[in-house]
């Protein structure tokens, strides 16, 4: 058995079994990434196209490395964002890529639903590498993988997600997956950064960070999107850092041994204090390393010819 779907668009649409299959597959690839020769022939002859309409170094590089370690051919396609008109250009570009006989398209786009649109328009498999504020499934999968690798069970796991939840596709993907897996998810942030009605997804909302962190086993920090500062979501960066920045004192409010996660890139001294980012409880670099194994797993599972 494998993943019986053409595309990976969201975690909201995956079952618990499918999520577990991806994590187990990633585990096999984790062993591969630890070898001296980190390459296997599984995707020989397949073409993976990284189609990134938004700038991204980390995710694109991670997908590129994952595809190369599977022996696939990789093309990086980064159309300039300035001329993009939602929908029209995407489908035009998709036709170009289909002509290149891509087996898998990895799409990053500023508009929610872009991956879904693309998936319906092309025969190739589509992997959503982030669409607007909607989802970023592989990031959440690598977060889940990192949590599991730390020996933590999802059932009843107390996870605090801190920051601009409303504008975070990482938070959304994690929220969908973690609640599905039975975790107890708390969302921490100012009211301006909480999506309306998010409690209905099964999460508890805290505006007081200290309260929300109590007993947390996983602290997932979100990047403060400084480029959104003009939107008056918070008065000053300094105030945000004081209210919602993760400091060593605040880590002590969580469960002893709690792990600190961040999808990167981090703003040191804003959402996370430098000493916390570099502390033993931080698994931020594990997340990056695990990302390659998880994406190898996803590419492998999506590469079936059916």
């Amino acid at each position, binding site marked *: *058995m*494998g993943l019986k779907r053409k595309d990976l668009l969201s975690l909201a649409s995956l079952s618990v079994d499918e999520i577990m299959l991806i994590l187990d*597959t990633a585990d096999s690839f984790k*062993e591969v990434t630890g070898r001296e020769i980190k390459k*296997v022939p*599984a995707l020989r002859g397949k073409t993976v196209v990284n189609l990134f309409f938004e700038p991204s170094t980390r995710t694109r590089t991670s997908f590129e490395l994952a595809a190369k370690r599977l022996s696939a051919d990789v093309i990086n396609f980064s159309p300039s964002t300035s001329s993009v008109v939602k929908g029209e250009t995407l489908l035009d570009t998709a036709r170009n890529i289909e002509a290149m006989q891509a087996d898998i398209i990895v799409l990053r786009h500023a508009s929610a639903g872009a991956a879904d649109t693309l998936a319906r328009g092309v025969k190739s498999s589509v992997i959503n590498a982030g669409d607007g504020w909607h989802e970023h499934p592989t990031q959440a999968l690598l977060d889940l993988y990192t949590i599991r690798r730390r020996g933590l069970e999802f059932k009843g796991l107390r996870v605090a997600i801190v920051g601009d939840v409303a504008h975070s596709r990482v938070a959304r993907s994690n929220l969908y997956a973690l609640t599905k897996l039975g975790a107890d998810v708390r969302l921490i942030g100012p009211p301006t950064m909480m999506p309306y009605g998010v409690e209905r997804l099964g999460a508890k909302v805290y505006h007081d960070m200290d309260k929300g962190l109590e007993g947390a086993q996983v602290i997932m920090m979100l990047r403060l999107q400084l480029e959104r500062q003009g939107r008056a979501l918070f008065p000053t960066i300094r105030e945000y850092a004081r209210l919602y920045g993760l400091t060593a004192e605040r880590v002590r409010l969580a469960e002893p041994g709690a792990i600190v996660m961040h999808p990167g890139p981090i703003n040191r001294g804003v959402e996370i204090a430098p000493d916390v980012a570099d502390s033993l409880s931080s698994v931020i670099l594990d997340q990056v390393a695990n990302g390659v194994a998880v994406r190898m797993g996803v590419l*492998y599972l999506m*590469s*079936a010819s059916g």
Partner: protein
Amino acid sequence: MTEKREGGIARTNEKLIMDAGDIARVLTRIAHEIVERNKGVNLVALVGIRTGGVHLAHRLAKRIHAIEGVSVPIGELDITLYRDDLALRKNQPVLRKTSIPFDLAGKAVVLVDDVLFTGRTIRAAMDGLMDLGRPEEIQLAVLVDRGHRQLPIKANYVGKNLPTSREETVRVLLEEYGEEDRVVIIKPLS
């Protein structure tokens, strides 16, 4: 890779080929042969091919220990990523883990599998092994050789040569799966 070892076929057409005693004696013989051929086991390592081969490798190691008093290193190899039919499949097979907790360099590696059939699994296993290191030598031990090779591959140690037709299925059932040890041929329902 067309070996069908598990599932899906009614038991009624089964024919017993080896029972628990046969399997035990054959493994004891192979263990002796491995010791003899390699003049001791100082450089020998066993690598079982998932899943059946892994169990057999452990059983062989136990016997070698009884003969020579030496614990040979054991590895486990998942060949899925090296299969030659991956690009053709509608669904990707479930990956299991490869674990070779020793340095392959200089070792005489005995690959262990339950059934030798087309030889494609062994080709994949050798490629997989070579990516993990440079053994001095690779040998092959199988419980059953059922013929129908599609590649020029030959086992060094064979438990039983079993003439079969292509349509038949050979299953190796082991205690490790919660079964009684036995090898059976299953004829297709015609």
